[in-house]
Structure formats: structure tokens, C-alpha cells
């Protein structure tokens, strides 16, 4: 095995392959940082172009994009409160608050180091454990997937803190909204009212842009009336130091390890998705740091999702490389990229084309290393140019990026409407102390839950016991129950304490 790994790294020494990887990382960072664009869109556009390239060059380019786009999304999330990609949605919660405190440099530094850590961690998993882990992931059938989705949603509810009921309501509202579009089992259009654009459900990226970008601009209008803007302006322009010091690294190390492990596990399970990983990682970080108020600009709140999403990147290649089953939609594009070069992903790839298989693995490792300095440079450039803008003018730029990003997803004005609608709803709900953030994961997991619920019930001939007879499913449900009951238990304890006092 070590010989093959050396073969993979050896090929990266070829200047054109290395330049392709470098270029891919740069492109990935840029498209990730632009709202509305992401790795999937860029790779889908580039795959036909790679037809004429050497397989090594083509794959190095695509790996570079995949590795960096996920991190790139955190830059506008931290600086502007607009998630560049869906995977950086949780980063907004604490990242933007750090910017408001004048710690944008540190937030970007933590995001970069966390992303590199998560990426390297999952690259090592891909390098050494791919075949073993891929077989474990195949133990997941419909009941296990259903229970996994329940666990994902329960982490969101657990994140709620004191407002458990409100968080639960918004999560279930997400499930209701997820039924818009074609039903996953029979392909019947539901609540689409004849609008073709709704057949795929509510588009995620325009919705996220609305929830974060539009809402923040609308809320700024209130801030001006309160004359708080001048006060907010004092700190926001500060960039501060970027790289975390030794003390901070020591503080973040447990978060990196936990979030990296969560990202790896979720990434390996086909279809589980990056969003689930970032929510779970954030939730775990919050539970392990009970003394810190998450959502107010806590470094752990940036480190957890950023480690997890980059850990998902390489680990999503584990089932693809070992079994030919893609871990997510982006890694599925690699099937196209490999097939266009006359190769088939799966166990035969390691046997027939070891130089390509191990090049991909090595490229993930080196791509993550390249992402560190390049990401810091882009982050510094963007923060120095964006944050120096007058706060009023900056909001004009934010709304410009919002509308352009939302439109670019499907080149459709309909998505601009979605952005506006969700932005306004979120703004109104914020006024009555409801946060729409918990809606995101249930909205994504809804179709997965529905499909696997129905498949499970078909398998069990209508018996719900199937979810309790499978050990994995039962385990996941027990963990979900614990996640859900923990805040309730905490609330009861606090009430008792208050009564005693």
C-alpha cells in the first residue's frame, strides 16, 4: 500500500499535474466565495472540458476545486453573513459575530486551520481505511437512514437552548415545507401549483441567501433607527491577527478531533450529506462547551462546522473509490470525470489504474495543504477590501451579491423571489424571537426521511418495529432521544433550582 501511496504523491511532482491542482484550489476558493456558485456547478461545467486532458491533470484539477470550494464559502459567511456555499451556513452564526467584534482575521484564520485539519484528517482516512469503512457504510439500509435523519434533526432541536419549542416548531415546519415538489417515492407533484421551478422543492441556496444576507440588510435598517450603526462600525473594520496562537490551537484541538470524526463518519455514509455533518459538529461543540454562549462569536462555533465540512469532502470519496457508490452529489461527478477518461470507479480502479486512484488520494492531501496559505491570502484580501468599505456602502454590495448569487443558481428570477420571501419571513420571525436557522436541515433531510420511511414500511410490511429491530437504527434512535431530552432535562433542573432559590 505504501508503495502505491508513494506512486500517487510521485505523480503530483509532475509540474503540469501540480499546476492543475493549484489552479483547481484557486478556482475552488473563488467559486466557493461567490454566493450562488459552488463546487458541483463548476465541476459539472468543467468535466466536459477535461475530456481532452490527461487523466492525472483532469482529476487533479477537479480534486482542487472540490477541496477548496467548501472552505471558500466560509469567507463571505464570516465577513458578510452570506453563506458562499450551503456548507458554510452554520459558520455564519459565530463567524459573522466575530467580525462584528473586530475579530474577522481570527475567524478567517480559525476557519482556514479548521478546514485544513478536517481535510487532512479525512484524506488520511481515505488513504488508509477506504475499503474497510466503505463496507461498514453499506450496512445502512432504509431503516438506518431514516433513524439517521431523525438523529440529524434532533441535533438541530438540541441546538435550541432555552427555546426548545420554537426550535422544534421551525424544524417540523422545515419537514412540512420539504414536501413541496415531487414526492420521492412515486414522483407525484405536491404543492407546486403548476410552477415548474418547484418540482425539485424549495431551492436551498437562494433560501439560505435570503435567510442570512437579506435578513441582515433588513435588520441593519432597524439598527440605523437605533443609531447603533456608528457603534457597530467601530469594531467591524478591524481584521486583527489571522492565525490562531498556541493557546487557541490547544483550545480548539478537541473540537477539531470531534468535528473531524463526525465529518468523516457522515461523509462515508452515502447520501447523508455535508449539512447534517456541520449541524452535528456544531451541536457537539456546543454540548461540550456549556460555559460558552454559542452564536455570539465563539471560536469553537467557527471551528466545528468548518472542520466537519472539509472532513466530509475527502471522506465522501471513500464509498466512491472503494465501491463505486458516490457519497454525495459532488463526489458523484467524479464518476463522470473518471468514465470520460475510460475508467470505472470502484474496487477495480485500485487494481486496474492504481496510479490514478492513488493520485486522487494524494491530491486530496496536497490540495488541503495548498488551501491553507491560499485561503488565508484570499481571506486577507477580501477582508481588507470588503471591511474597509463604509458600512452603509457595504450593505449595497451585500444585496448585490445576494441577488446575483440567487439568480445564478438556476439563471432564474424565481430564485430571486425565493430569496426575498425567505429573507422577509426570517426578518419578521426574528422580531418575535424565532430563528429560521433550524429549518435548513429538516428541509434537506425531509425527502430522505420520507423515502426511507416508506421503503422501511414496505420492507416490514407496514410494521414500525423495523426501526427498533435493527441494532444500528435502534442505536441512532436512542441517541436521538438523548439529544432531544437533554435540553428538556436541563430546563427541568433549572426550574427546580430556581424554585429552591
Amino acid at each position, binding site marked *: 500500500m505504501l508503495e502505491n501511496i508513494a506512486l500517487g504523491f510521485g505523480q503530483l511532482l509532475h509540474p503540469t499535474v501540480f499546476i492543475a491542482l493549484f489552479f483547481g484550489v484557486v478556482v475552488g476558493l473563488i*467559486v466557493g466565495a461567490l454566493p450562488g*456558485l459552488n463546487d458541483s456547478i463548476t465541476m459539472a461545467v468543467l468535466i466536459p472540458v477535461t475530456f481532452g486532458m490527461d487523466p492525472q491533470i483532469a482529476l487533479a484539477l477537479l480534486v482542487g476545486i472540490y477541496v477548496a470550494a467548501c472552505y471558500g464559502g466560509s469567507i463571505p459567511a464570516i465577513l458578510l453573513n452570506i453563506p458562499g456555499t450551503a456548507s458554510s451556513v452554520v459558520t455564519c452564526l459565530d463567524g459573522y459575530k466575530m467580525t462584528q467584534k473586530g475579530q474577522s482575521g481570527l475567524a478567517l484564520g480559525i476557519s482556514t486551520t479548521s478546514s485544513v485539519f478536517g481535510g487532512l484528517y479525512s484524506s488520511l482516512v481515505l488513504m488508509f481505511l477506504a475499503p474497510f469503512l466503505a463496507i461498514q457504510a453499506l450496512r445502512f439500509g432504509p431503516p438506518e437512514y431514516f433513524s439517521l435523519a431523525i438523529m440529524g434533526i434532533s441535533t438541530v432541536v438540541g441546538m435550541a437552548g432555552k427555546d426548545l419549542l420554537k426550535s422544534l416548531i421551525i424544524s417540523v415546519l422545515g419537514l412540512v415545507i420539504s414536501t413541496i415538489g415531487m414526492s420521492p417515492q*412515486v414522483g407525484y407533484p405536491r404543492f407546486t401549483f403548476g410552477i415548474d421551478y418547484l418540482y425539485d422543492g424549495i431551492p436551498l441556496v437562494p433560501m439560505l441567501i435570503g435567510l442570512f444576507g437579506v435578513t441582515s440588510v433588513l435588520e441593519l435598517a432597524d439598527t440605523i433607527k437605533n443609531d447603533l450603526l456608528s457603534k457597530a462600525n467601530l469594531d467591524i473594520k478591524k481584521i486583527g491577527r489571522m492565525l490562531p496562537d498556541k493557546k487557541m490551537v490547544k483550545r480548539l484541538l478537541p473540537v477539531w478531533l470531534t468535528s473531524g470524526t463526525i465529518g468523516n463518519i457522515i461523509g462515508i455514509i452515502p447520501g447523508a450529506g455535508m449539512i447534517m455533518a456541520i449541524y452535528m459538529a456544531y451541536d457537539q461543540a456546543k454540548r461540550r462547551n456549556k460555559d460558552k454562549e454559542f452564536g455570539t462569536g465563539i471560536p469553537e462555533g467557527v471551528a466545528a462546522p468548518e472542520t466537519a465540512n472539509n472532513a466530509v469532502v475527502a471522506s465522501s470519496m471513500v464509498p466512491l473509490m472503494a465501491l463505486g457508490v458516490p457519497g454525495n452529489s459532488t463526489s458523484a461527478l467524479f464518476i463522470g470525470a473518471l468514465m470520460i477518461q475510460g475508467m470505472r470507479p470502484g474496487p477495480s480502479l485500485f487494481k486496474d489504474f492504481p496510479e490514478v486512484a492513488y493520485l486522487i488520494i494524494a491530491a486530496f492531501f496536497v490540495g488541503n495543504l495548498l488551501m491553507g496559505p491560499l485561503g488565508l491570502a484570499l481571506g486577507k484580501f477580501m477582508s481588507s477590501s470588503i471591511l474597509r468599505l463604509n458600512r452603509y456602502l457595504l450593505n449595497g454590495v451585500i444585496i448585490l451579491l445576494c441577488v446575483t448569487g440567487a439568480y445564478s443558481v438556476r439563471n432564474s428570477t424565481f430564485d430571486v423571489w425565493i430569496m426575498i420571501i425567505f429573507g422577509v419571513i426570517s426578518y419578521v420571525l426574528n422580531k418575535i424571537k424565532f430563528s429560521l436557522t433550524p429549518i435548513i436541515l429538516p428541509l434537506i433531510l425531509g425527502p430522505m426521511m420520507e423515502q426511507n420511511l416508506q421503503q422501511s414500511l414496505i420492507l416490514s410490511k407496514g410494521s414500525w418495529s423495523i426501526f427498533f429491530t435493527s441494532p444500528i437504527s435502534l442505536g441512532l434512535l436512542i441517541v436521538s432521544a438523548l439529544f432531544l431530552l437533554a435540553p428538556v432535562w436541563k430546563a427541568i433542573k433549572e426550574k427546580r433550582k430556581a424554585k429552591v432559590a
Partner: protein
Amino acid sequence: MIVRKGDFYFSLVLDFLCVFVFAMSFSFPSEAAIFPQISSALLFVLSGFLMFNSFKGKQVAPKEAKREKFQYTSAVLLILGFVAYALLLNFLGYIITTLALVYYTIFVIGYRKQKWLIVTSIVSVAVTYALFRLVLGVPLPVSFIARLIQG
């Protein structure tokens, strides 16, 4: 007595939504109806708890409520601007409508230095257009005049 009016009205909206979803799902095939029915029924129950809770707690001081009403003017103006933008985007094209939107947003927020307002609007839209349209090939909408010229 309703204490938290926001919670109360939101729970009412949710109840209407749940009834609508539940009722409409009966027109779907049974496989497509189960999930909307389960989720809307669950939401209905939770919304009931929210409504119940909205009657508990302390009354908000009327002075504070009055002050909050005043704050909404700029936000409403901005929302109207966004709606107008979405309506006009395909008709007037990306460049004109987006230029107007950026200018309008900054103006409504309260910035009044015309020189910088115009410079920021033009430069930011030009850079974004160049990046998305020319570099990345995103087909941003063109105005009806441009469409007429292009035939």
C-alpha cells in the same frame, strides 16, 4: 389575555398552513400523502403548545411596543424595493435594475453622499457583472431593448 401576540399570530398562521397541507394531501396518491399528513399533524400539535404558551408570561409595556413600530419604515421600504427589483429584472435587464437596487438600498439605509453612492453602485455592479457574466459565463438577464436589438 394574549401576552405574546407574535407567538399567538404565528401559531394561527401555522394552524392554517397545517389544515391546508393536511386537507390538500387527500388529493394525492396514498404513498405521496403520508409524510405531509404526519408532519402537518405534528406541527399542528406543536403550534397548539405555542398558542397555549402565548397566554402565559408578563405583558409588554405599551411604550416599548410603540417604539418598535417606528423602526419598520426603512425595512418596509427595502422590501418594496426588492419586490420591484424582482418584477423589473427580466424587463429592464440585470445592469439597470441592479444599479438602481444598490443605489436605492444604500440610500434607504441612510447614506447621503451622492458621489460615493453613485461610484459604489457603478463599480460594484460592473465588477460583479464582469465576474459572473464574462468570466463565469452566467447568463444574466438582458433588457428588452437589448433583446429587441439582438432580434
